[in-house]
């Protein structure tokens, strides 16, 4: 009996059949796994496959015409003016990523190192830095759009006061106030800085958690051996922070290349002025769903663009994650 099948343990259900433990476990697992799997298939896999299929057809507006091969991709990459638009938008995504790495993540790392040494009020600053992350993005966008308004905005008011101060002190005539969002030279940078302002708290907290998880003895040992603060940071904290760096780099990369919401709210669908704030997300939206001033919307080209973006982000993320992971091992 002892070695026999495990049937007697569960009393048989009334008039029903009895299930083995293995089977009931399988059913249990299935009830847990099937709904999310179905959701994933319906809302992730199916749209991805249909986007791929759409991208291979010719479209007139929303009507699908014949099979088109790779023509949509060719148009986007090699025909004018699409090629210029694609390169312009892609380049801006690159600028966004690089700038965010420098002004957002590097600053976050410095802040985390400072907060990690538990100065007075570190809890308070932790909350302050994280606060903008919790604000709704549309709110942040509109608020900064007002701040940057050349007529009423607080930014230019401060810069005007600063310019006057400089003039009075040094006698140098300067005008620091600018129509930030209206100039091709400043619009993208202004948007990136607003993005950094909003997200700064997130990498800070991730880095800080990484620093706090490093056993305290390591720091003590290093200091006993006579290491100064820079050496501790360089040779103890930095290598052990590698997993957090990996996460932040990859998330920033994906976020930068999917950037849509903030430029949409603050600048607009067509990346004004003169496409200087255009990024792939906005370009995709305009192409697939149309814009009031545009020509026909084109699902095929839009889907092709989405496929290109997806492949680029996927390949780079996978390759880069691997590289960063092996770097983590090397550093440790």
């Amino acid at each position, binding site marked *: 009996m002892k070695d026999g099948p495990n049937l007697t343990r569960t009393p048989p259900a009334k008039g029903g059949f009895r299930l083995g433990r293995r089977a009931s476990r399988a059913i249990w697992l299935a009830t847990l796994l099937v709904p999310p799997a179905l959701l994933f298939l319906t809302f992730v896999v199916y749209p991805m496959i249909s986007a791929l299929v759409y991208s291979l057809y010719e479209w007139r*507006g*929303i*009507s699908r015409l014949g099979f088109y091969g790779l023509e949509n991709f060719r148009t986007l990459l090699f*025909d*004018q*003016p699409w090629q210029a638009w694609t390169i312009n938008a892609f380049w801006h995504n690159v600028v966004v990523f690089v700038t965010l790495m420098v002004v957002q993540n590097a600053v976050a790392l410095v802040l985390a190192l400072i907060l990690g040494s538990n100065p007075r009020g570190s809890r308070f600053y932790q909350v302050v830095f994280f606060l903008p992350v919790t604000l709704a993005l549309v709110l942040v966008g509109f608020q900064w759009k007002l701040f*940057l*308004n*050349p*007529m*009423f905005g607080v930014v*230019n008011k401060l810069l005007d006061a600063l310019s006057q101060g400089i003039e009075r002190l040094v006698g140098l005539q300067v005008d620091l*106030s*600018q*129509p*930030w*969002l*209206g*100039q*091709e030279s400043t619009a993208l940078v202004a948007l990136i800085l607003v993005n950094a302002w909003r997200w700064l708290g997130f990498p800070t907290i991730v880095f800080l958690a990484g620093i706090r998880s490093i056993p305290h003895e390591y720091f003590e040992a290093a200091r006993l051996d006579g290491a100064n603060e820079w050496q501790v940071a360089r040779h103890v904290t930095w290598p052990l922070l590698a997993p957090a760096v990996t996460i932040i780099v990859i998330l920033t990369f994906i976020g930068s290349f999917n950037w849509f919401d903030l430029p949409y709210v603050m600048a*607009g669908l*067509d990346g*004004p*002025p*003169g*496409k200087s704030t255009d990024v792939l997300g906005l370009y995709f939206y305009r192409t697939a*769903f*149309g*814009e*009031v*001033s*545009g*020509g*026909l*919307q*084109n699902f095929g080209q839009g889907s092709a663009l989405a496929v290109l973006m997806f492949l680029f982000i996927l390949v780079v993320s996978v390759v880069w994650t691997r590289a960063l992971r092996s770097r983590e091992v090397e550093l440790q």
Partner: protein
Amino acid sequence: MMAKSTTKRLLLITLVLSLVGFGLAQTKLTFWSWRTEDVDEYNEIIAGYEAEHPGVDIEFQAYETSTYQTVLSAALSAGEAGDIVHVRAYGNFETIADFLLPLDDQVPALADFPRLALDGERRRSDGRVYAVPFASQTLVVYYNTDIFSELGLAPPETWDEFLSTAQTIKDNGYIPLANGTATTWMNEVFMGVFGPNFYGAEFFDDIMAGEADFTDARFTGALEKLLELRPYMTPDFEGIDYATAQNLFANGLAAMFAGGSWEIANFRDLNPDLNFDLMPGPAAEAGQPQLVSWFLDGGYAVNAASPNQEEALEFVRFLATQEFGQQLTDMLQNISPIPGVVSTDPLLAKVAELNQTSTPYIMLVGFRYETPSGSVMMQERLPGMFAGEITPEQVGSEVTEGIATYFAPFQN
């Protein structure tokens, strides 16, 4: 037993018949639109129609303006859109024309509509009209009558008068022209307000016939003239967006605003105490007519997949009547293209009068059908031109080059 089941059967038949009868009596139609701000007025108009057409129940459904085109096109292709749909004109309309019923043989009143209005809802491939034109827009200059009378100014009629008027306003501490260049589509409007008086009434036809392109001196000369307005626009105009410009004018900080006839209602909403009037863009020389840009805003169409086409068509025929046009004008401050409609509002009446000397709003009417649209090409270059980074000649040749990718007359 037998009697009972007969009774039952009779009851059932009565029930079914009454349901069918109810269904017949109450044909339910849905009417989709982007005019979220006009819901009450449309419901009132519809209630009047329903009173005269018992058995038809029309529900007006308004969707958010900026996503309406996307929602509508997706719903039409899935066969789920309303029976009657409010559609835009020109290129935006052609995107969805496959899913609409041709109306020219169904709505006799269309025969009396102005040709230019019908062209906005005409599909170029078959020449048929798919929607009843509902309102037109005209591009004008608004001016603050209080500021003008304070400074003793009269509405300028020529370009030189316009510039000297603007200078006087500036000297007295007001912003002469509220406009900025930060909102892309407003740049095209800006050109539409001032451009026609320099490129002239024949230019549109010359372009469409391929006898001229946008490198033509008439067009680049008009662009060049816009640059003379820079000193009179809001300071740091590069960063002034549409909403800011509207507010500067509505709150009396700026004396003039170049924009579309749709702003009449906006300014009244923003500041009910604002005293303002409108005028056409100034003529190049004294004695020339003052031309305004004109375009059709949209129309009412019937979904080809509607199960109640006859009822929907009947309603759309009503939307083409003078009775409806008058209601639309009186209640919604729209300028109806329906013949015989007279506006009692003095500003709307003025717009209707200006429409007598109008020319098509060039890029919207002619070049929003294909990509790259003439509008996008213009809009993305004008901020650079205002900033002095590219010349009007460069704008003209790049726009021509872009349009030439699909417009045969430009290709030789």
